[in-house]
């Protein structure tokens, strides 16, 4: 079970959070074409190792946090605000 330290609420169980995926992606803008959005919507680096990701603390402060987590070991490197 992950214990995620929310920058606002402190360490909490993973069930309080909703995962929202790769935080290294940034959404293309109004001027970008379908190809850019295709990459954004579908293509992932999906590393086995440190991964920067979004988590919403829906069961706590309802704030989003960016988490550095090792997807292989679940060691958490750190959490910060957007």
């Amino acid at each position, binding site marked *: 079970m992950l214990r995620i330290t929310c920058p606002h609420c402190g360490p*909490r*169980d993973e069930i*309080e959070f909703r995962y929202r995926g790769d935080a290294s992606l940034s959404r293309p803008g109004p001027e970008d074409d379908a190809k850019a959005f295709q990459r954004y919507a579908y293509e992932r680096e999906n590393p086995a190792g440190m991964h920067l990701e979004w988590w919403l603390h*829906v*069961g*706590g402060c*309802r704030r989003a946090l960016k988490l550095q987590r090792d997807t292989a070991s679940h060691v958490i490197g750190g959490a910060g605000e957007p």
Partner: protein
Amino acid sequence: MSKPERGLGWGGLPPPGHHGALGRDPVKLQAFMRDAVEVRLAPGMAEALRHAAAGLGLALPGMGESAGTGSATGAVTTLGLAPGEWLALARPEEPGAFARRIASGLEAAASVVETGHGLACFSVSGRAAREVLAKGCRLDLHPAVFTSSTAARTVIAQIPVTLWRKDEAGAADSPVFALAVPLTFAQSFAHFLLGASAGTGAEILPASKD
């Protein structure tokens, strides 16, 4: 037309009386109701909000803290639940009056959204209160950690809960925990409380506006 009377909005705890085991330390369970507003700071208005809140006499505690807890009639309890976000709770008054008062006092410094009718409030008190809540609450409720000025949002029995202490500082031996859950979950949350307190036993008190 008769005057509108606010109801609990859910079925309520079982009738007052004893519940569960006949233990030495039964907890007290009570449902109560509150007016409430969510106060959300507008960008760049922190200073203005502090000023406006001071004018209203409204405490704005830090994240994870509660303030203003008092027994005086009309007192407001404010919980810091997220950065720049507070939940202010007060005893029920005329429909909409509390929200209007806070909103007009804070004006443009924050958005004020009325949410009190959407909350069902419970208190769990007594020496065994921690033991009872530990059957669902994943937070550390040890008095050194969850003090009488702590507030938190968490999840208990799959239900979102806002949790704070209603007792005065120093009452570590017999804490009073207040829990607010979304109204539509109230019946299920009551089921959790009854199940969790069956082992220690509980005394159910009549629902209250206080």
